[in-house]
């Protein structure tokens, strides 16, 4: 996720990936009563994926370093609806 000034698209893509992984049918792939390295696989995958999503959000939400960033305009908290 480079800071390309297209955060809106990245955000929506991340949301969709979240829905995709957490909803059936994908969830059923790892939803098995099996231990992996001593931990239930669903437990590991769910918490691991959860953590990844949080890391991605944190990365996307960090403040920009300089104001002359070309993507600065789309960095406002709300992306204007009018540009879509």
């Amino acid at each position, binding site marked *: 996720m480079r800071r390309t000034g297209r*955060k*809106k698209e990245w*955000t*929506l893509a*991340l*949301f969709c990936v*979240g*829905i995709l992984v*957490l*909803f*059936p049918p994908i*969830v*059923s792939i790892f*939803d*098995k*009563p*099996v*231990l992996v*390295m*001593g*931990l*239930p*696989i*669903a*437990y590991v995958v*769910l*918490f691991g994926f*959860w*953590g990844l*999503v*949080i*890391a*991605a*959000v*944190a990365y996307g*939400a*960090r*403040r920009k370093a300089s104001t002359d960033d070309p993507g600065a305009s789309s960095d*406002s*908290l*709300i*992306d*204007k*609806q*009018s540009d879509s």
Partner: protein
Amino acid sequence: MQGGLVVGVSFAYLGLLFAIAYYGERRAAQGRSLVNNPYIYTLSIAVYCTSWTFYGSVGRAAKTGLDFLPIYLGPTLVFVVWSFVLAKIIRICKIHRITSIADFISTRYGKNFALGSLVTIIAVIGTTPYISLQLKSIATSFNLIVGFKNTDFPTYGNPFGIDTTLVVAIALALFAILFGTRHIESSEHHEGLVAAIAFESLIKLFAFLAVGFFVTFSVFDGFGDLFYQAMAHGLTHLFVVNHDQGYGQWVTMTILSMAAILFLPRQFYITAVENRDEIQLRTAAWLFPLYLLVINIFVLPIAIGGKISFAGLASDADMFVLTVPLHFDQTQLALFAFIGGLSAATSMVIVASIALSTMVCNNLVMPLLLRWEWVNLTERGDLSALLLNIRRASILIILLLGYGYFRIASESYSLVTIGLVSFSAAAQFAPAIIGGIFWKGGSSRGALTGLSLGFLVWLYTLLLPSFAQSGWLPINFISDGLFGIYSLKPYALFGLEGFDSLSHSLFWSMLANIGGYVVVSLWGDLSPIDRIQGSLFVDVSEENLGQKDSQYWQGTATIGSMQELVGRFVGTERAEKGFQAFASDQNIVMNENDIADSKMLAHAESVLSGAIGSATARVIIGSMIKGENVSFNEVFQILDETTQVIEYSRMLEVKSTELEETSLKLQRANKRLKEFDSLKDDFLSTISHELRTPLTSIRAFSEILFDADGTTHEERQHFLGIITKESERLTRLIDQILDLAKMEAGRMNWTMSNVDPASTIKEALATMDGLIKERKIQLIVDLSDTIPEIRADRDQLAQVVINVVSNAIKFCKHPGGIIRVSARSHLNGLLVSISDNGSGVLPEHRDFIFEKFHQSRQGSNEMPVGTGLGLAICRQIITFFGGDIWADNGKEGGARITFNIPFSSA
């Protein structure tokens, strides 16, 4: 454990909360805010984790494994898109001084009173079970920690002869009243409250983690050992999300929790209304999901630990957090866990009751009071005390309602089920709010219809069956349907079976809600105020953050009376301060007797909105100013972004029209340039032709003279005569070209003086005398004697006369030519006309004859006479003298050239 100790610790904890809240308020009053940082903000959002999380998740995990997780995954997904949804809602709340979720919906849909009340009613009905759930968890945990392995203690302990839960409820009400209704402006921040809530979030996190660490690393030997033993105990069904049923409930719960994190009244209140600065959301966006993740890591381990510890024993899985430490005689840890559960429960109860009381006061009670007792209300002095008292009473009533529900109904239900009923109620707000901030077309009637339908379906498919299960309604309501009609069975409406009750209810209620909202919104036209609020909400952006509200008031109220009105609701001092600030903001001097303009009225409304909600504020201002709403057209001049965009596009349109005009001009100029270019070419070819003709004849006759010996003297004389004449013509031509070029370039040396026109004309005619006589032309001169002098170059004026007259000589009838020359004064100027009796000028040639090298021919075969420059020179000269020259046909049919020159005095 000693009941007295537990009670003592509990109340000591509550006392600590009071102290923290008090300290927070003190700091705020000193201007050194304790809570204005993103971490406190994040912790305050964690009010989401109630006793349901603290106790209920473990209970659910002990029964069905990992399927407690959607309640926390849903909010995480919502925080992924924080910049679309949350930031927008928060900004709207700040701009419009929103006080609650009911206020938000009512403000969005035209400050509609009915909508606000409906949302309030749904919120109260939906939240009461949730509050009772918290009270239940406090009571249960208290009884457990006191009664555990303490056989001589009754199961339901009343150590002081009264119910502890009631005492706790009243203490919480007291706290909410003290720190949640400090100022009347509910859009202002309650710093003490937020500080206390954040503290509670820390306590419950640490308490839960402590129990989790104890179970995982003390009872068991780390995660590996724990899960290995679980497998050995045949608990592998807890390792998965779903053991045998489908994923319907998993998906439903995810969706519900996504709605809950946004639209539970307490979440909305703490996330949006109590938000200090939008920028804090940047941190909360990842930190809050991280909080959820951390607090959930040990849910499954504790559940498994409980299951293994109490294998074969009767135990309430909902209380494992407490009973597992007690089982291993960790009383201090158990007490800490109890305090953690208490903090989870109390924080929810406090925030929910404050949020609900604001809604009840602003969106339910005040509008009704205004409607029924408007006269009485206006006659009262300071209304802010009344408002605060309504809010305080609401808090108490809401908590007593929750307590009542707990006493009567909650015994039969587990924590999670009650919580999900509440979540489903909050989800009913989703279509109206999400639609409201992304779709301008949503109307108040649509929102009202959708909410009502969704609420009724929720009531029928979820709440009433829960009453039936609690024994309030006959149980055959569930098994046989209403009036025994099978298709009306609340858990299988219209024969829809195969879903869990939650998914079933969500499906039908959302179908009714979204369907009603969309269809009714599309059905009719939007009212103007719906449209304005719609575009204000949808197009909210950083640019219009300073812009407070739409201005559609115009009326005749004075500033003084407005200030007095606002003062009655928010306190005189505060109103005065607000108005002064507004005046200095707008750089105006306020005079109490001035008429309040629409900006001032909008400001007054927004201050009132902050105190009593937008719908009520609108009614009050409306009845006060007795004016009319600004007309439809004026409404659309309101500076919302739509009009700005329209304005902008209109400007663009103007610009593009200008551009088009410029390019047209350019095109025209280009065409003229091309014309000039071809004119230049024509000029060159004509001039070379004109020079060539005399040159040819000069050369021809020179050659004859050179070659031929046998020419007679007469012949030679004749030839030389021709050569001389042609040379003269050549000289004249070149002179004229030079003159014309000089004149056109403005380099002519004019010797301007006051000239007597009559004598000049006479002189000029005298030079032509010979030619005229030779041609036997009759010259009729008619010169007025009293012509004043003109400012001109004498020689050039004579030149004009000579040119025109020689033209006339050329074109007049032959023989019998007549030329008339007349000069007189006319309209402050000299008017000279020279006419002949020739064939005249064709109307289409009248302008051309003044062009260079235009040569009139008397017949198609005849050679042109003259150079074609005479009249062009005339025009240059006359134009320089400030006059005009034109051609038409005289009375006799011949051509008439007329020119005028202004008098020198004029």
